[in-house]
């Protein structure tokens, strides 16, 4: 029985957009030119591969279904009216691909590749003596990044966090970019009343403390629906689609609070572009305003959009961890790097220090943000004809 979350739609959208651009590079045209430019840059290609791995992980973690419940003999459990009963816990393809990592939990903390727990326990030896020592793990040498407080494998948690990060990074951006371009161009190009109105809106938004807005929004909308983990029957529409996902509301509010910076940049750039001679020349042909905006203004704004996207992407992933820290980010049952960082706040104040939870989040975040920056730069350069044939 499949389960589709509203945030899954974001992942599907992003992956299909990436596939679309990938496929359109096979035909002649603009995308092909850009692809040839990117292909010359070895570092960008390597970054692209890393990003593809992340994308694949997020995609695999976004296709999920519930299994039918079975009794001890393996026969499906059927309710009184004859319908097959399903487990409330949906498992994604990623969960199913890594059953070993999902199931091999320990009692509590253990260091990477260790064979013993990190904390001493009082144990009884077979000859009856009571000793206090580090007990052996159930799965010794199995945890490449160690285990956390409840004994879950950190590598697996970090892998599950990929989807959360990608959903937040891209989902908020999907909100930001159309808003920012639309309002920025309108304000910059038409000026006058439109400019005043847009400036009024974003000045107002920017003057409300962002955290306050996010907190009240999340408490209003985010606290009810799906929080991660088990799917409650009341959240699912037609037993399949879960529209009210806490993560979705988080993307939305992060987008709403962060489109103003890009909008301001775009407004300024549009003001400059509007006076360029090529815009005047186009107007002298009697081109419509829409045509001028479409052919002359927006393409010349793309570098700003790309730079902001890449910079905000890492900012948004970090914002998620900050918000999880004050308890209004993703739900505690959703694996996320923010939750991992939040947990390591206490772990780092222990003696001896438990450092691997933070390391796991750090490595995964770093390996996503750095290639995203490199690849974003490469795309921006490839889009600019002036930088070609260098």
């Amino acid at each position, binding site marked *: 029985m499949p389960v589709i979350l509203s945030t899954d739609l974001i992942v599907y959208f992003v992956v299909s957009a990436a596939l679309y651009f990938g496929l359109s590079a096979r035909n002649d045209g603009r995308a092909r030119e850009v692809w040839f430019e990117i292909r010359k840059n070895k570092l960008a290609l390597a970054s692209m591969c890393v990003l593809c791995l992340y994308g694949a992980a997020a995609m695999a973690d976004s296709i999920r279904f519930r299994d039918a419940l079975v009794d001890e003999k393996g026969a499906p459990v059927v309710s009184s009216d004859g319908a097959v009963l399903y487990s409330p816990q949906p498992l994604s393809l990623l969960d199913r691909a890594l059953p070993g990592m999902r199931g091999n939990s320990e009692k509590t903390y253990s260091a990477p590749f260790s064979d013993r727990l990190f904390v001493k326990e009082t144990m009884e030896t077979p000859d009856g003596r009571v000793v206090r020592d580090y007990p052996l793990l159930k799965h010794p040498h199995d945890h490449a990044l160690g285990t956390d407080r409840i004994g879950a494998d950190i590598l697996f948690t970090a892998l599950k966090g990929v989807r959360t990060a990608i959903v937040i990074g891209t989902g908020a951006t999907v909100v930001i970019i159309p808003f920012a371009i639309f309002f920025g161009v309108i304000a910059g190009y038409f000026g006058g009343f439109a400019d005043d109105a847009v400036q009024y809106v974003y000045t107002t938004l920017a003057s409300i403390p962002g955290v306050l807005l996010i907190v009240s929004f999340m408490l209003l909308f985010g606290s009810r629906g799906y929080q991660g983990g088990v799917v409650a029957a009341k959240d699912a529409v037609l037993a399949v689609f879960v529209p009210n996902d806490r993560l979705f509301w988080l993307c939305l509010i992060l987008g709403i609070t962060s489109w103003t910076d890009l909008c301001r940049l775009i407004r300024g750039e549009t003001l400059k572009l509007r006076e360029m001679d090529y815009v005047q020349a186009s*107007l002298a042909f009697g081109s419509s305003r829409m045509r001028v905006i479409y*052919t002359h203004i927006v393409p010349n704004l793309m570098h700003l959009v790309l730079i902001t996207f890449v910079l905000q992407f890492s900012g948004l992933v970090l914002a998620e961890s900050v918000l999880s820290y004050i308890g209004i980010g993703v739900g505690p049952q959703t694996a996320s790097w923010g939750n991992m960082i939040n947990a390591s706040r206490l772990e780092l104040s222990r003696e001896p220090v438990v450092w691997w939870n933070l390391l796991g989040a750090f490595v995964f975040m770093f390996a996503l943000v750095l290639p995203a920056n490199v690849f974003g730069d490469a795309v921006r350069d490839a889009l600019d004809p002036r930088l070609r044939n260098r």
Partner: protein
Amino acid sequence: MSSPTLEVKNLRTYFRTPAGAALAVDRVSFSIEKGATFALVGESGCGKTAAALSIMQLLPPAGYLAGGEIMLNGRNLTELSEAEKRDVRGKNVSMIFQEPMTSLNPVFTIGEQIVEAIRLHRKKDYNAAKEASIRMLSDVGLPGGASLFHEYPHRLSGGQRQRVMIAMALACKPDLLIADEPTTALDVTIQDEIIKLINKMKASTGASVLLITHNMALVYRNADTAAVMYAGKIVESAPAKGLFRRPMHPYTIKLLRSIPAQEKRGVPLDTIKGVVPPATSYPEGCRFSGRCPREMTGCAAVEPRLSEYDAGHVAACHLWDKEFMATGQSRPLETITDALAPITSPEGSDIDEGKTLEEGKTLLEVRGLKTYYPVSAGLFKRAAGYVKAVDGIALIVKKGATTALVGESGCGKTTAGKTIIRLRAPDAGEIIFKGTDVANFTGAQLKPMRSSMQMIFQDPYSALNPRLTIKATIEEGLKVLRPDMDASARVKKISATLKRVGITPEMMERYPHEFSGGQRQRIGIARALSVDPEFIICDEAISSQDVSIQAQILNLLKSIQRDSGISYLFITHDLGVVEYIADYVSVMFAGKIVEDGPVEEIFANPKHEYTRKLLSAVPRIDKELPPLWTLP
């Protein structure tokens, strides 16, 4: 004879570029006597500024000195330590830059900046330095120095700022003043004042001046000695008057002949074929080989020496070298008569010849045109007042003729042009185009006239969208104004238009950055021509170009006019261009036309005071000289 103030010997400067080391200055030697003005002239990219920066020892990080000596009063500047060099700059050598708008720091008052310049080199206390700087300000013609002392740079006009720059540069009485294009960014009347000021200050301080410019007439009027640079080398150097009386190097001759002036009316300007070779790969022999009309078989292989052929007149050309001419390498590659080809359209362009022109009829008449910019103030941005950019002007453009609109920057001529072509709405007045008043037309009504009126812009870099191919750029107008044309008809039209302006149609898939400034200007012209206009406004269309490219563009515009009877409105501040190309001229001052009429009449007998001032401010080369400029 005393020893010269500055003596440069075999100066070589390289710039590191991705394409390899670029030889910006190649074995340049010259000397400047005490109190003399030495001019370095040449087109952009020939190494004039690199030479000046080498002398100042202020090369950018990518540049380095590869050899040579720079002797300033007997002291070799290249051997000094960095601290000693700092001491020399400002005290012994100082520099004035081209752009007065950016050469002063906007966050300090001009007084503070001059005081800083003085106290860096003179042990003076603040009050003494302040007194000295106020004196300096009045010396450079800025009276009221005490109140000006506390002003910030943005309160001053470009001319005033350039005066402040001169005051700063001369505050420590340097032995040498380097003026790098000191007047290029200024209006003609202010140019004249600044040059006079430099000459006056030179006389009172006894400094030598190294004048770097591309303006030949300025050199003729002000320099004692002039050197022509081409591709990093001095190709000819002579006492200034002698250089103009008898130019020896073919490059100098061609350059001089490409300057538009009244006596060249009706004939095409001379042009130089090809482009300057890139500084990373100069030809082995003469740098001008391949472009020279008098090239001989040995020119590309043997480098000509710079030898003296007349008193103080040196040139680097084999034509004057008797030894070389006696060898077998002196066979000319082609024999061209020294006559300029008539203005023609290039072969293969599909513009039909001999169109019947209805010259003399009025195409456009402007009456009482006013364009005001509101100055908003207060909370609700109510218009508190108006800047009267165009304040009731009248203009007439005749069919197949050229009207020039001249005036200095800020007089409203560009706004006038944009209003006439209806890029903005006028506040009052009539714009009668082909018998219809289009002043109050809106959106859809304007569309039919769009294809008959087009515009060419000043800056070829901002005139083309960097993200569109040339084809897409030109196609835009056709798509909008000729919806009847299909894609293949449009491509045909674009090819024909590109061919007409001298761009190979195969290049249409390229992007603007792949073209040189001159080519971009041609593309801008092609964009305007593609919709077959009857009237084109050229807004300073050639003023940012080098002389030789200006000449090509002017020739092109003239030949287009002859072929298809297009009328031009030339908006410009360059009176030489006006004299050369225009039939009628309107002089604009502070939003109003102060004088108009046929060009010959206005230039011979200016009536308005402003016109007189304008005309007298233009440096000119004496009229009897141009006929002497013939190729050897």
